[in-house]
């Protein structure tokens, strides 16, 4: 791929999504859109206290309302076979007992024959509670944090070295809770086909995981659970586990002996399907006058629920990003009476990088060294944590490409020194990194005698456009046009694939597609015999041998290279902001994002993924924050009207650039992930640009106008 073509602004280079036509015509069906015969509708009732127990549930009025089929709660819930074997710390066991674990914890499910009737009748259910004193504030309870089950502490050299450095920054950071808020509300249609046979149309990032989890919970054989999840309307991590509403709908379907559809409300999305945890961090970082880092110490405490020890280890990035002899990281978690967090785009790294890259920026101004230069001075040639070589790293090139694109070297260096139309102008940058994994995956490839190639695997697609790179890989490997190739996904009947999370799919499933195609070609070679072409007319060969098809099932996984190398994808974000000196409003005016993701297979979808992550990063920087009223332990801004995400008017054109250097040490394609790195670092880049514009260092996200007005001499 020609780099110039690939990096053209407003590029339409590359293949359009192979499933795009269904998405622009309304033909793609998402979980709640399977209106199966006999469907009934479920609506959940959430607890209105944060901790305590249910004293009583009066559902008489609801049960007598038109169309109501059942009201299910802990009072009448059938025994769920898998609940007894659940460990002490586990996802909520819905309708298991009278305990209330957080404000919003589902305490009853109403099922009726229409959605309207279910919604109305659910409002008639009266629940009384015995409330206990709850704790929902992280800031007020930091002293109670404890070590997570793993990855608590890391030491290399002297943990206090930063303190004695001639130049040092000691700073605390707060990253609020953020909610994934995919546009598709979480939903499930559950149908029992027999007492031990279950079919679900579900929103999930891992059909195989959902299949095995549901089999375990309901005590039925794995092969008796069918999971369909062909189209997923975004997730960003929120569909990485089986949630209470999925189990509730399945219980409901059993009770009313009809299929049940259950779609969460937007308000439920803030309480019942996880979030990025509110996290307090502290960084101590020191450098010599020449910019060489002397030591980095990083402490992080993130919130979790009382029933699960969720930890995302935000401090880890500080022992992985820069060459430094003295490193210390310390991760803690704090249990609160809130729902459990879950992985959200760039987990751990998005949070940790905001702190580390803000601190690096602050240090650069102290040292009077250009922020990019400071990063190059401390560029890690080998992994600072283990000393191992990288599988591939072209981060230096990424810095260069991004700086050139945005005009970094002609920017105003002194904070508050430039204005455009009365707005203060500022430039900022940040690095991002995320592990590049390759998970086991299996692909079935079938060549038919009409020349069509069918690829099947149980991966889901939450939006990046998985099928498109897969078809491109197969097309190149087999030497047939993409129109002849179909990639089937999102069905538990297909061979194993990992969850779509952690930026692993092209590396994992793409490699499996590649290897399956190689294996299929070898089978054709065996038919043809010696001397045949590498890319024959497959249909003709099949007909010649009186075969209707030829198929292979190929496993793919990482090998010993994982012991030899450390593997990361890298990103660099450059931002130009405008800040209104009177109102404190921040506008992102320009954004350039450079990805070092190995080889780019599908330029059009890759570009969109980078832009999309960057936009979510702008939301993280400027507007996203879940607010809890601690008197009630309740989320107070559970709607798009109150919890702001970026809209069109907030977003400029964004330049997505690719280094496009294959990393053949990780997989045969040389491709690495980009879903996470597109976001990781964005918030720091924006915050650093705001500092450059105003001289005000905001360390508590989001950077709302109230944090900038009245900053004195610049107004």
């Amino acid at each position, binding site marked *: 791929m020609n780099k110039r073509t690939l990096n053209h602004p*407003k590029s*339409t280079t590359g293949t*359009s999504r192979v499933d*795009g*036509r*269904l*998405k*622009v*015509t*309304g*033909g793609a069906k998402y979980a*709640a*859109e399977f*209106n*199966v*015969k*006999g*469907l009934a509708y479920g609506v959940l009732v959430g607890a209105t206290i944060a901790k305590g127990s249910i004293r009583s549930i009066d559902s008489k009025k609801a049960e*007598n*309302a*038109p*169309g109501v*089929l059942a009201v299910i709660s802990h009072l009448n819930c059938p025994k769920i076979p898998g609940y007894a074997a659940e460990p002490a710390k586990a996802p909520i066991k819905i309708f298991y007992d009278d305990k209330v674990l957080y404000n919003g914890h589902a305490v009853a499910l109403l099922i009726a*024959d*229409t*959605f*309207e009737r279910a919604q*109305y009748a659910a409002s008639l259910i009266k629940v009384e509670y015995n409330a206990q004193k709850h704790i929902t504030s992280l800031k007020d309870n930091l002293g109670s944090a404890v070590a997570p089950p793993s990855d608590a502490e890391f030491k290399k050299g002297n943990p206090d070295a930063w303190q004695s450095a001639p130049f040092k920054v000691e700073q605390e950071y707060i990253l609020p809770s953020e909610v*994934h*808020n995919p*546009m*598709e*509300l979480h939903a499930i249609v559950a149908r029992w086909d027999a007492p031990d046979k279950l079919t679900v149309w579900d929103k999930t990032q891992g059909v195989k995981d959902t299949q095995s989890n549901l089999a375990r919970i309901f005590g039925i054989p794995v092969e008796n659970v069918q999971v369909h999840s062909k*189209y*997923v*309307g*975004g997730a960003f991590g929120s569909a990485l586990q089986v949630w209470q509403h999925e189990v509730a709908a399945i219980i409901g379907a059993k009770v009313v002996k*009809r299929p049940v559809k259950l779609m969460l*409300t*937007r308000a439920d999305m803030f309480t019942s399907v996880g979030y990025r945890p509110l996290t307090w961090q502290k960084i101590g970082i020191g450098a010599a006058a020449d910019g060489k880092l002397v030591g980095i110490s990083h402490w992080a405490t993130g919130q979790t629920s009382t029933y699960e020890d969720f930890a995302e280890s935000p401090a880890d990035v500080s022992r992985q990003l820069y060459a430094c002899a003295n490193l210390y990281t310390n991760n803690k978690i704090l249990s609160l009476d809130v729902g459990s967090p879950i992985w959200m785009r760039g987990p751990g790294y998005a949070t940790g990088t905001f702190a580390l890259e803000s601190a690096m920026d602050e240090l650069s101004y102290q040292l009077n060294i250009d922020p990019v230069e400071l990063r190059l001075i401390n560029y890690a040639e080998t992994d600072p944590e283990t000393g191992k070589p990288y599988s591939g790293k072209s981060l230096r090139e990424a810095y260069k490409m991004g700086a050139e694109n945005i005009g970094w070297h002609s920017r105003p260096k002194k904070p508050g020194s430039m204005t455009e139309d009365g707005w203060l102008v500022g430039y900022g940058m940040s690095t991002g990194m995320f592990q590049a994994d390759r998970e086991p995956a299996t692909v079935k490839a079938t060549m038919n005698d009409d020349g069509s190639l069918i690829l099947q695997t149980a991966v889901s697609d*939450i*939006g*990046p*456009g998985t099928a498109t790179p897969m078809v491109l890989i197969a097309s190149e490997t087999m030497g047939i046009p993409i129109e002849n190739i179909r990639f089937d996904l999102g069905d538990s009947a297909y061979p194993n694939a990992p969850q779509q999370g952690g930026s692993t799919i092209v590396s994992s499933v793409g490699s499996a597609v590649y290897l399956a195609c190689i294996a299929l070609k070898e089978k054709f070679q065996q038919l043809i015999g010696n001397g045949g072409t590498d890319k024959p007319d497959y249909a003709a060969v099949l007909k010649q041998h009186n075969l209707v098809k030829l198929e292979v099932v190929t496993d793919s996984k990482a090998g010993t290279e994982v012991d030899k190398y450390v593997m990361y994808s890298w990103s660099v974000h450059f931002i130009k902001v405008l800040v209104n000196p009177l109102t404190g409003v921040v506008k992102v005016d320009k954004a350039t994002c450079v990805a070092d993701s190995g080889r780019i297979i599908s330029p*059009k979808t890759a570009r*969109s993924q980078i*832009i*999309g*992550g*960057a*936009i979510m990063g702008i939301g993280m920087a400027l507007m996203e924050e879940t607010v809890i009223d601690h008197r009630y332990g309740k989320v107070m801004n559970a709607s*798009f*009207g109150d919890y702001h*995400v970026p*809209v*069109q*008017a907030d*977003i400029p*054109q*964004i330049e997505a650039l690719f280094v496009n250097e294959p990393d053949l040490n990780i997989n045969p394609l040389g491709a690495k992930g980009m879903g996470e790195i597109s976001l990781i670092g964005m918030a720091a880049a924006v915050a650093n640009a705001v500092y450059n514009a105003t001289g005000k260092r905001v360390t508590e996200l989001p950077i709302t106008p109230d944090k900038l007005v009245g900053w004195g001499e610049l107004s």
Partner: protein
Amino acid sequence: MEKEKNHSRPVEESDVKDNSRRDFLKKSALMTAVALTPVAAAKAAELHIDERIAGAFEKMPLNVEINGVAHNLMVEPRSTLLDILREQLDLTGTKKGCDLGQCGACTVHVDGHRVNSCLTLGIMVNGKKVTTIEGLAKGNQLHPMQEAFLKHDGFQCGYCTPGQIMSAVACVREGHANSEHEIREYMSGNICRCGAYPNIVNAIQEVKEGGMAI
């Protein structure tokens, strides 16, 4: 109580086979509503005779043209246009993203104007023409806006996409697509969490500048 109900098929007025019941409804719906005081209604509910009575007088006729097809439906007055499309007519291309008019995923055209179908009761579109994403293409020939969204990759997961496209078509027709800035302002009611905003702007600009009849 109805045990089996096929939701993939809309409830058309002609489906109500019991003519005497329908006549009864037409003639005396108001009288019945007045006569059934809350106490009487509650009593009826306790005796489990609520279903037939309530089910009958809860519904009203809705005559509407959707994507060029005339529908004579019986709907509850509280049913939103969005839920009628998705749950009764199986037109699931129109999406539910918030049910509060805050995200735009449910955008459809009513008599040519873009509206949030989640904030529109079904009975409000009686006698009107509704166009959903399913009615935009002419057979196999995509609408220019659909083509432009494909070319510019104006989506990822695809869930907000029908609403974006319906809104985009209206944005151009309204004359609100004269600059990138103007497009951004007039497309800000449609949230895209995957972040396809710049690509959406580029798609709309191409359609606008192409001067195609849309």
